[in-house]
């Protein structure tokens, strides 16, 4: 796939390397343009650097991997560029209280975008070191979103870098994978995790 990636730090940089290894074509953007350029150089001919506004409209999907505190500024900067796009949100709202789970907040903030919450639940070192496992040793990675087609794209991306995609369904249940949620940072194989997925309704047994 052609993937735009905004943010090239611990998560973004790791994802870029994995997605490149998996054979995807990448458009990389960063708050620090030199970092995006150096990373594109490192990854070779299937990766190019761009500014965020260009990355936002490029490719089959755009992955957001900026620091949580930088997300609002980025969304302001991008304006309508994310309209109608598949947006994979890998950021986490550290130090920011949105009043509702970030996945829901972002979907409301970008009403015409097809937002998927994915790649946000694992420590970046686990994302780095546990990728490209084969078979039953694959770690599960959860995703949530209201659009089935967008979830399918995110699942494909997750599988391509060697994690087992576990689709949690609509954004109303995304609280389970947000920080402080029961699936945040959980590292286990898919069959085991599937036995322990809480109900999407908060407070239900």
């Amino acid at each position, binding site marked *: 796939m052609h993937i735009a990636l905004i943010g090239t730090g611990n998560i973004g940089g790791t994802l870029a390397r994995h997605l490149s290894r998996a054979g995807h074509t990448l458009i990389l953007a960063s708050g620090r343009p030199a970092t995006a350029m150096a990373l594109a150089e490192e990854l070779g001919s299937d990766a190019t650097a761009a500014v965020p506004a260009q990355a936002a409209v490029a490719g089959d999907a755009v992955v957001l991997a900026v620091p949580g505190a930088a997300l609002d500024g980025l969304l302001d900067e991008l304006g309508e560029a994310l309209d109608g796009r598949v947006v994979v949100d890998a950021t986490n709202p550290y130090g920011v209280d949105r009043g509702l789970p970030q996945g829901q907040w972002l979907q409301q903030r970008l009403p015409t975008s097809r937002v998927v919450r994915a790649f946000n639940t694992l420590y970046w070192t686990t994302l780095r070191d546990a990728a490209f496992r084969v078979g039953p040793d694959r770690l599960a990675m959860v995703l949530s979103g209201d659009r089935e087609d967008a979830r399918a794209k995110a699942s494909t991306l997750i599988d391509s870098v060697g994690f087992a995609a576990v689709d949690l369904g609509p954004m109303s249940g995304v609280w389970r994978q947000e920080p*402080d*949620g*029961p*699936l*945040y940072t*959980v*590292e286990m194989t898919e069959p*085991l995790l599937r036995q*322990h997925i*809480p109900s999407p309704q908060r407070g239900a047994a």
Partner: protein
Amino acid sequence: MKVTVLGAGNMGGGYGRLWAAAGHEVLFSYALDPSNLAAAAATAGPRASYDEDPQRAVTGANVVVLCVPWQQVDDVLTRTGDLSGKVVAEAISPLLTDMSGLAVGFDTSGAEQLAAKIPDARVVMALQNTFADVVNAPRRELGGQTPTMFFCGDDPAAKTTVSALITDAGYEPVDAGPLTVARYLEPLCYFTVNLAYTQGLGSHIGLKLLRS
């Protein structure tokens, strides 16, 4: 997952064996006699190993399981060093030294007292209302039914992790709520001990939650 089991007695050794059989990487540490660690690892099979250094043993663990006697809690926490951010499952009944009753009362619990010593860890109280004889039996079922294992804690993701280990040990996990519920769970565990040994029902007993 990477599971570090501190304490290699009947409980720690037994659970470690079950988790290794379920596919987890188990590391035993903390024993008065180091040869017990080697024995536990050998019994638990190829996915198990041991490390005589508890501080090193907890590094990199997804979950640390405390299976030591209540009287050893301070010592094991000193030996493990910093547990900040770690999921810590504690399987420790706070018994009096002569096991004649609980050492803590109803407005607190062993779990809460332990958690207060490691405030940055994510403590889950679990694995207590069971007997080592059942843990070490070929199967966990009693009378053909899977026993319930109640657990409690304040961190949702830590509880998911421990719930998975309970399942992989062959029990039915039931989330009993926040860590303060240990005030009721620890007496429940001792109640079961009383049934087994004072009432003479023996140790191949357990409890199951029924619901319609």
